[in-house]
């Protein structure tokens, strides 16, 4: 089985992931949404640090072309600006973080990191 050339895992809050999945840039892609949290984590007692419940979601997205990845990079930056959220982009094949997209991220720098520099 041939593995795809362009595949990314995008991690952020549920609202951000939902908006991303509604975006045209991923409309034609194969997508799955995962929750990386464990359903068998220990039940902690309230001693130590107050915990934040983050409810992150991870979308794994497979693109067919480099042009589609470039459009996706632009959409990610627009979304980070619109929702004022940080969005992590990871390589699902290695788990390494490729980028953390913020309001200040340069779309061209991001495209380069995603391997589709113009």
């Amino acid at each position, binding site marked *: 089985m041939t593995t795809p050339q362009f595949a990314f895992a995008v991690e952020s809050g549920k609202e951000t992931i939902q908006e991303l999945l509604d975006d045209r840039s991923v409309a034609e892609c194969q997508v799955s949404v995962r929750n990386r949290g464990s359903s*068998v984590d*220990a039940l902690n007692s309230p001693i130590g640090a107050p915990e934040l419940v983050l*409810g992150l979601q991870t979308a*794994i997205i497979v693109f067919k072309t480099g042009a589609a990845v470039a459009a996706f990079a632009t959409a990610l930056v627009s979304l980070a600006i619109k929702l004022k959220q940080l969005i992590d982009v990871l390589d699902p094949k290695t788990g390494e*973080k490729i980028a*953390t997209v913020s309001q200040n991220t340069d779309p061209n720098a991001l495209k380069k990191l995603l391997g589709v520099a113009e």
Partner: protein
Amino acid sequence: MISPFTLDPVGLTLWCDPSLIGRSIGTDTCLTLFNVAASGDLKKVLECVEALPPEAQHRAINIVSCVWHEKRHFIDYVLTNFGAFNCRQFFQLLVNLTPLLLESQTEGGPLFLPLESVADPVSRLVHGLPQTPQIDVIADYLRRVKEMLSSDFEIPHPNIGYSIGGTAAFEALGFTFQLGCAMRAFGLDAFGAICGDLGAAHYQNLKYRWAEVFLDRFGLLRHGSTNGKAYVDLRNLTPILYTALMCRFYDASEKQTGAEYQAVGLPSERLVRLLVELGNRKQEMPESIEDIWCYVSHVAAELWGRTPIQELDADLSKEERLFEKLSTSSNTMPQVRSFMEQFHSLRLKFRDILMEQPNLILDTGDFAEKLLPELSPMRIIAYPQSKDELAPGEEPIFRYSDGKGDRYLAVSPSKAGGKLGMQHDSDMRFVVSDLVPLAKLLMNGRRHNIVLGVELEYAERLLEMARIKFKVDPLFAYPTALIENATAFEYLTKQQESICDLCSESFLTRTGSVISPWLFRANECARRLRHTESLDVLFEFSTTIDWSCSVVCTGCATKITQCLSHSPA
């Protein structure tokens, strides 16, 4: 950062890790408090706390109350339909373990973990995974269960800001009974002692107190005053949460729509429906907790056609049939069979108590006096830096052998089982030390927040010994928080100053960071950094068997963060 006291919902074991909190009160004192609190003997606990110097007593009361919080999780997790549903996914996995491992090898392997990645078509494409019929069935089941549990955990509305699902209900119950038991043991001052030791940020944490806020929205929180002091009366809370947690799970033979399933199957949906209904009739709410339970049960029957006890009985019948089927499978190990039987039998005992003496489960005072001493989840004490000998009566759970001798990372302090718990015998220890870690690895790779990372390393070693080739999905390769600020470390240890574990410089603890023991195993750059910066001459040795966290200064934390980060400007 993992709390020093936790209930493992897979093995149903009560864990204590005294390594950090022991620095504030002494490790031996911490262990004594843990063991005496776990016994549930309120008089002995009081004696133990009163024997301590006054400045240590608030911390001690907080410690014992946390143990009670975890013991409360034990009964709620076993008794309620929502908790038992969580447990049953683990049994399903263990029963299918042997055929599943065999198939992974005959189909050319390696076994891809977590199994739910196998059920995800996109992950399958990304990693080029082949079809594996038996694995696919169990993987699909685990994925559906996780989706269901995740949807229950979701924050229902941005204006609410906290989860109101089944897991959240466990935390609300845990905190309510923790305070109730402490006040029964130490008097009303215990409330101030616990809140003082926790600090405002934690005491007001909605993870534990959301249900009070939520009940108040519907006019169901009672207020009272005694001797001029106002207080909040939580007597409505437990009957309502218990009714929400007695949710209905359909089996494959029953047809239902998604909406029907959600309405009766998700604790969050049940809770909202119940609160709306009870809020409309709040004038009719009775006074005694027993009457409140009857009244809420009656309303539940109007809404969903069954009282909570009827929902429980229906769930127990289904569970009995499921366990009969699983037990007769030739693949089922005798230890798994025994664990399932004990689990089901314990549920039946709890069911009888809820039916005949509901106050023992629903009222904080009666629970503290009569039920708490009877609950006996197996205790496990973790030693992240390991220790070289067992104390009398201790049984090893996780050990490291290098040919010269054994070092122990986790031990069980007592063989004795209680009236309401599993047998603490060799079968149970086999489940806890071998099968539970294996199940965790299969269910979510290494991405768990567990007390001791060595659990998962053990599971991997078991697979290697069985010559099972496996590969962990890189998205599930390590726990979430590899580096955190040291606020919790400072709170637990009460050390305002610390020595950096890398550069050995002294620093203000709150300015530093805590590094997970996984980081030096997960990240080659951080590993090299530790090797060059650290004065630890036994570096390789300690990286292998030391599962304690490290505390580092700001400068070293920055270097480590650089190892982890590849962000664009």
